């Protein structure tokens, strides 16, 4: 019951601060409409149907962004006493994490639908088949859960805006660009970097989903939740940040 109550308030927060949260919807649309449309002409001969190639990349981008968003949400909840109230009034740490995950997964589905609509515009109606889209949404949810878990774990450790911004700044572009989300990465030092980037494997799983990959992603999601529970149980309920 309490996780659902808190999820409702996460959405109230999103609505009250909708101008701030709008960036979570504008950013992927901007990547799709500008970056991928620009790359399409030069890459389509190597990637096959670019709309399918890039949609998988966009899902990975959204999943990774869910991690940084969750980190900020948890850091704010610890600063504003929401996490302390939740756990002191009888709520459990896994229940609190469930509220963050429910919120993040719903936002992801909203972003995914928005991306499909924008893809129709950007790729002149060329969308992947409905079964492919459904698979991508389902696999995307697993990715979101895993990434959010790691974001929550960091949010349980971060005690200042400066650290939060630093983590987001140093991870965002390198992680997103050092994986074959928008373009193939073939050879050179970037391929070596990409080999250490989870998004490289996750986007591959999205483009060619197989049984073993799905099992791996379920393990990824469970690992994320486990790390989140471990971190938050040891975190100060109320951070020192003012």
């Amino acid at each position, binding site marked *: *019951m*309490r996780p659902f*109550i*808190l999820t409702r*308030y996460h959405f*109230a*927060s999103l609505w*009250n*601060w909708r101008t701030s949260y709008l960036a979570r919807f504008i950013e992927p649309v901007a990547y799709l409409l500008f970056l991928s449309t620009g790359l399409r002409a030069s890459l389509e001969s190597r990637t096959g149907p670019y709309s399918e190639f890039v949609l998988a990349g966009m899902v990975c981008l959204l999943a990774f962004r869910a991690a940084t968003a969750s980190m900020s949400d948890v850091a*704010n*909840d610890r*600063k*504003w*006493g*929401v996490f*302390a*109230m*939740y756990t*002191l*009034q*009888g*709520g459990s740490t896994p229940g609190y994490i469930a509220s963050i995950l429910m919120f993040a997964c719903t936002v992801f589905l909203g972003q995914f639908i928005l991306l499909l609509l924008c893809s129709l515009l950007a790729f002149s109606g060329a969308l992947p088949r409905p079964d492919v889209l459904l698979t991508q949404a389902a696999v995307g949810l697993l990715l979101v859960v895993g990434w959010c878990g790691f974001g929550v774990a960091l949010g349980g450790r971060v005690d200042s805006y400066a650290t939060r911004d630093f983590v987001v700044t140093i991870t965002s572009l390198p992680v997103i660009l050092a994986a074959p989300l928008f373009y193939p990465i073939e050879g050179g030092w970037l391929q070596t970097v990409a080999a250490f980037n989870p998004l490289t494997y996750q986007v591959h799983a999205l483009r060619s989903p197989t049984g073993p990959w799905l099992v791996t992603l379920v393990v990824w999601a469970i690992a994320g939740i486990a790390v989140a529970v471990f971190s938050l149980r040891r975190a100060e*309920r*109320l951070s020192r940040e003012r």
Partner: protein
Amino acid sequence: MPEAIVAADNLVKKFPKRDRPALDGVSVEVCPGDVVAVVGHNGAGKSTLFDLIGGLSRPTSGLVTINIDRAEVGWCPQREIVDWSLTVRQNISLGLELRRPGARRTARAAVDAVAEALGLSAHLDKTAETLSGGELRRTQIGRAMAGSPELMILDEPTTGLDPEGIEVVFAYLDERRKQGAAAIISTHETSRFSRHCTRVIAISDGRVLTDLPVGDYLALAPHRTEDLWDVYEQLKEGSR
């Protein structure tokens, strides 16, 4: 004597890199109808005691027992903790619903009632970021008091309030006490609060100097006074 709602037994709290414990063997009981004033200078251990009773931190040794449902405990820490992205109504309602998960239907009326009592009715739909310091504090107090909990743990609730706001909070506490609720409160409004509390616990350097009914406590002063602080200073002198 009625059973204690809260019983803190021999609490010791040590912090790393500090020679002396913040609390050193503190025992406190709060019974229904008690309004307990905790008096002490800055750093005496009041907030540490409130954090332990509220469950925000764990004692190094000793035990805190809460003998009522957690849903009946309203908590307002010293630090300003309000969700800045929510409105006043949502902040108060969130606290109430987390305490009593089935209270959604009755939450609106409960929030309206506490907002009216605390003079927040005109601000209910404003987000916290637009409020003054006093309004933020009253929002936090409202969250602790919404739904009329049996026990209120209020750590310096009057900080940042103007005299009128302080009277509003104290009047509301009086009303709740008459209904049988209990409260444990620290405040620097020591002269006014003597008219509203039933017991006084004086703390210094992490130890309880005295724990007496308010009349007996004030009678310790060599001259007639209503200021809890006058007696506190005398007790502190005597303990040296």
